[in-house]
């Protein structure tokens, strides 16, 4: 196990190096000069050149890249070109908002989708199966943008149950929790759909296995068969997928963060791309990538606990 962990952690290095190189190249290859954008349309060439020098953007690309890499190793992601604040501080604040929303969303998704999937599986081809799978497909196809605005219109404007936008505080306060609800639902819908469909098919598959037949023929009640024998095995792929979904939620909340004016990292990085705030974009992408690979690692480790047959050598 230890050996596996070390191996995986070492593998992280080339992955992150690749991400660093990739994000660096993209930001330097797309048109739009940061010094120009930061200076406004009116600035003269010499003013722009002076700013470029001040921001270190006049250095050759390989030097800039090496500086960026050096910074990563000492935990310094540079300074935002726009606000002149350390990127790490700027990202930290936003990451908390994104992470708490993603956590809420994954908890909500799991709580809704797994019972929904099990229910649909046990009542296969019933009207309830069709209804819940219809909702799953709807959730998968509905764009987050549209869904967010619809929820906002009905629940925040028509009956004013929740605030339309913003994060009013951490989720353990009443006001804060209320502001979490609409973005959480919007963000969860697609995950609920994916997880519910997988739970359903996975449970269905397990229920056809011989050992379930054995359990049934022993005279065990359907409830015991389902919860004691079937679920343990059926949920393994669901856990994997839930982990991957969490990775997506942490990085892919841009639309939801924009619609609900959420002070998160996705919205921040997208604005930074718009203004060519290179250090912020690079730092944000690095963090997204790191989160994603770490979550995958954690999911892999969790396998061993859920399924004793899996061993890491």
């Amino acid at each position, binding site marked *: 196990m230890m050996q596996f962990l070390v191996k995986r952690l070492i593998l992280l290095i080339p992955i992150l190096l690749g991400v660093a190189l990739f994000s660096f190249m993209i930001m330097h290859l797309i*048109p739009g000069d940061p010094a120009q954008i930061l200076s406004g349309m009116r600035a003269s060439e010499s*003013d722009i050149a002076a700013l470029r020098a001040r921001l270190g953007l006049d250095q050759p690309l390989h030097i800039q890249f090496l500086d960026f890499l050096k910074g990563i190793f000492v935990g310094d992601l540079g300074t935002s070109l726009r606000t002149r*604040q350390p990127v790490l501080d700027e990202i930290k604040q936003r990451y908390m908002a994104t992470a708490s929303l993603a956590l809420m969303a994954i908890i909500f998704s799991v709580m809704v989708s797994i019972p929904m999937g099990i229910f649909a599986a046990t009542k296969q081809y019933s009207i309830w199966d069709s209804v819940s799978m219809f909702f799953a497909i709807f959730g998968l196809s509905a764009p987050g943008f549209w869904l967010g605005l619809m929820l*906002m219109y009905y629940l925040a404007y028509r009956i004013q149950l929740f605030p339309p936008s913003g994060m009013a505080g951490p989720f353990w306060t009443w006001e804060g929790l209320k502001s979490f609800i609409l973005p959480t639902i919007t963000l969860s819908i697609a995950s609920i759909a994916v997880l519910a469909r997988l739970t359903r098919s996975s449970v269905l598959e397990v229920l056809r296995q011989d050992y379930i037949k054995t359990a049934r023929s022993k005279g065990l009640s359907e409830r015991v068969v389902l919860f004691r024998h079937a679920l343990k095995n059926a949920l393994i792929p669901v856990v994997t997928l839930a982990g991957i979904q969490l990775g997506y939620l942490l990085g892919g909340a841009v639309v939801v963060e924009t619609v609900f004016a959420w002070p998160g990292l996705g*919205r921040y990085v997208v604005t930074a791309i718009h*203004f060519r705030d290179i250090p912020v974009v690079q730092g944000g992408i690095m963090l997204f990538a790191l989160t994603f690979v770490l979550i995958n690692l954690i999911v892999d480790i969790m396998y061993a606990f859920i399924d004793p047959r899996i061993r890491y050598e």
Partner: protein
Amino acid sequence: MKRIKVINLGLALALVVLVVGVVSVTADVPQGGTLRVAIRNDVQNFDPAYLVDATTSGVSFSVYEHIVARSHDGVISPGLSESWEISENADVYTFNLRRGVKFHDGSDFNAQAVKFNFDRIMDPEVASHAGELLRNNIDEIVIEDDYTIVFYLEEPNAAFIDDVLIQNATFLASPTAIETLGEDLSRNPVGTGAFKFHSWTPDTEVVLARNEEYWDGAPNIDQIVFRPIPEPTTQLTELRTGRIHFMTVVPVEQKAAIEADPNINVIGEPDFNVRYLVFNFNQEVFQDINVRRGLHYALDITELVEIFLEGVAERAYGPLPNMSPFHNPDVLEYPYNPDKALATLALSGWARGSDGMLRNEDGETLKFTLTTPLGRYTKDRELNEAIHFQFRQIGVDVDIEIVEFATLIDKLRARDFDLAYIGLMQRTGDPTAHLDLMYHSEGWANWGDYNNPEIDDLLNQGKRTGDPDERMRIYAIAQDLIMEDAPTIPIMNEFYLLAYRTEVKNYTFGVARPMDYSKLYLGE
């Protein structure tokens, strides 16, 4: 006629402001409360030296002030200077500063503070975006006494105040704060304005608090909270539920819906901007005046603006914004006329071939690319697709290229375009802030490298003349000449639109200072 009307309007407005101001002192308007304003993006950097984006600039108007103020309709008026004198040939500007004004950190506002700010922006080490502009204009700044400061210019400039002294980089910050805060001035602005900076929670809110010692009387409200809300529909929901009072960007699609709400006022006026198509004179085909004029006749601009921008823009007449006091109402026009377009193009040998395309004697088509930004100006893509279609209809072999705004600016600067859709937003209607930039051979926004010595002469004269009537005459001629030469095709003046709740009372709207909250109060 038009000019007189505008000036009268200005006077009337000033009177109203004066009367309301007097009334508000005596009639005990409700005090206190928090005004909530939605902004599109988060603020970025409050250090005047690096302040460029419109959002931060709008918020800053409540915290910082300039050496003189600009009234709501764009007229230069007393503020931190009680009065000023301009030498006869407009090259020496003397400002008599207001006494007893303090920066929010308690330090004194005086001539030394003004000079400190200007010296800093002009310092090449600071690398401010306005450094070179100020260095090119200002020869010397002399402190005559604590409350008198004199600017000696490199050369006469009648628009020095309007064009150079009032801009983002020349907001006056406390010298003590600049020295002690350093880079942290970027998130702790310290000015003399009606509101003091209180706090900034990134992407959540910026809070300003009432400045009790404001020289023009403390504001009625306790606080302003600016909330960055990127999505206009979300802003609208917040406005309708009463959680914000002001919405600063009103999308065209939602204007009608907002107007129907009895709790919301929608207000708008043409802004000091012209959106136009600019010909790149480095392309041989556009050096031909018949081509430029012919293409002008081919566009039904009135209809385009009506279809795409009903109620949010008006058709541009000439190179100056229609709102400008210097606008020439009789300026030359090119009314839509496809036949005349073809006839004009025929003067240079362009004739429609059997396939309907315009061709010259060598059989080449009239080929160029129309470049438009996406999402920068209201309906920019839709409008240009229609323009593309109208050109095609008379047989022009035109392609359309839709790019991000940052890319467009790169292309304009590199002169890497044929015909481009662009605009410039100014806070004043003075011709130096428009014509000098776009049509003078040395103007920084002369993207097409247009060069007409006659125009240059007129613009130089206008800049060096102190007499307003003489300037009016000069610029009327300049506008006609520019239209005659057709280096651009002016399309429209976009409105400045905003919506606010009816609880907000005594708010004065003006395109030159839409975000002025110093005199309003919150009622029922």
